[in-house]
């Protein structure tokens, strides 16, 4: 992945932002509320139209790819305000995550041709493995809407991992989690990255988490990139300190 540059018109939610995400790294994306972090994710998953600039993934532009093809290319994501399939079970949610890696359609499904049962079994096994990995085993058959917030966040993560992404976009995975849960999440993310050879773009307000697991950090403010570098550098950057102090005041 190289040369991710995005501009976004109207209200300038993203203004001439460029950065690269190197394969296999965890890149933290920080910035005060309204900085444009979620907007950037939405451009990447084609929910928003970029007004200028280009986004390259594995060397080819994403801007001509339709929304439902993004997952297939290998970009998975979670949402800042959970976007789970609320009436479905945890298992079914994760199985939907496999959609882009499976292919049976209306016709073969209604006849339940032999291939369908095989594909379904493989989907089930993959989903169950992810559910175990994320410690969701005990609630696998529960409706997601009935689960606590922190658990739902893990379901979203499992669902995003189900499509075997190369690049995982995590939008504030630690928000709403307590201190202990944040620690667990940090370890989990590192572990997942190593095990699944993932690249992660992480939006997070929880500074200690971002700084501890990110290889690189990009800081945004008012849609502009204000700093980029390794965690220690960015943390010391005067504009970043200014943005956060200003944002808090």
């Amino acid at each position, binding site marked *: 992945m190289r040369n991710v540059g995005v501009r976004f018109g109207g209200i300038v939610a993203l203004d001439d932002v460029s950065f690269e995400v190197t394969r296999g790294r965890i890149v933290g994306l920080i910035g005060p509320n309204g900085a444009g972090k979620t907007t950037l994710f939405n451009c990447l*998953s084609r*929910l928003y139209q970029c007004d200028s600039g280009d986004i390259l993934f594995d060397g080819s532009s994403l801007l001509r790819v339709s*929304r*439902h*093809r*993004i*997952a*297939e290319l290998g970009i*998975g*994501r979670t*949402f800042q305000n959970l*976007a*789970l*399939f*609320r*009436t*479905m079970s945890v298992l*079914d949610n994760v*199985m*939907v*995550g496999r*959609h*882009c*890696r*499976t292919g*049976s*359609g*209306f016709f073969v*499904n*209604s*006849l*339940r041709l032999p291939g*369908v049962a095989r*594909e*379904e079994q493989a*989907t089930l096994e993959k989903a169950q493995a992810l559910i175990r990995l994320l410690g969701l085993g005990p609630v696998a058959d529960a409706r997601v809407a009935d689960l606590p917030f922190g658990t739902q966040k893990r379901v979203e993560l499992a*669902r995003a991992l189900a*499509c075997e992404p190369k690049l995982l976009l995590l939008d504030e995975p630690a928000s709403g989690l307590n201190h202990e849960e944040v620690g667990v999440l940090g370890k989990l993310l590192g572990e997942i990255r190593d095990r699944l050879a993932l690249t992660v773009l992480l939006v997070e307000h929880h500074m200690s988490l971002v700084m501890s697991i990110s290889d690189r950090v990009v800081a945004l403010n008012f849609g502009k990139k204000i700093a980029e570098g390794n965690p220690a550098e960015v943390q010391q950057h005067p504009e970043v300190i200014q943005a956060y102090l200003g944002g808090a005041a």
Partner: protein
Amino acid sequence: MSRRQLIVLAAVLALACVLPFLVSNYRTFQFNLVIIYAIALLGLNILTGYNGQISLGHGAFYAMGAYCTAILMDKFGVPYWATLPVAGAVCLLFGFLFGLPALRLEGLYLALATFALGVSLPQLLKYHQLENWTGGVQGIVIAKPEAPAFFGSLGLRLNPDQWLYFFTLAVAIVMFVLAWNLLRGRVGRALVAIRDQHVAAEAMGINSAMVKSLTFGVSAMYTGIAGSLGAIAVQFVAPDSFNIFLSIVFLVGIVVGGLASISGAIYGALFIQFVPNVADEISKAAPWAIFGVFLIGFVYLMPMGVAGALRMAVARLGRKRQNT
């Protein structure tokens, strides 16, 4: 499927098979209509219950199926059973094509678009340029099929009502198995995912536009095949039997029976077939008022439909058994 579900299913099928030998011909005809409505409701439930697209115009697809059958039998001498696949294919195509532009419409706006379809079709059927085909206001009368001689030679004498009942039952079983297969796998999950969270569904790689249009087509096909069977059972089609009221009654059926439930289609069909009759017996003067009372009662007592209420009752029984 669990063991208990299999036992219940076998019992219901056994009951359905002996029913025509226990009740009058008229009742057999009524139960035939119940099965037909169940197929129509299943179609609508796939669209509205599972996929979240509200249709106030499915009576139009029922009418389309019915007219396909009537015209093919009346003008072309096609045997009644051979008209079903044609009616199904025509409605599949129309449903898909209607579903494409309807993609831009969400919720109540889609409901209005389908409502427009539902109110306009009966009038189109009366259109004088089409009268040669549709029979205009008079409609088309078709002959009642007899049981094939084959059954007589087996020593099984079926009168036409019984034969049609079994014919419909066989079609219904096929349609229900196909729907069950469709809904329990990858496609079924995609339908519900789109209903629950369409943005996330697309982010998971679901081609929401395609899936929604195809679902519209499949739904229309089910309701169209039901219309086709309905025409054969009633031996008559006319524009006024497919007015907008039919579409609304279908919607009532899936809500009362249970949204996003396969068995709900059967409960809903029993409701829309028999509750008006019961209401009529209670008060000849204001049967629809009585119907309304029933409807409110059902919705109030079983907010998740009959299927939902049964599911909850079974779950409660299971817990009680575990506790003792």
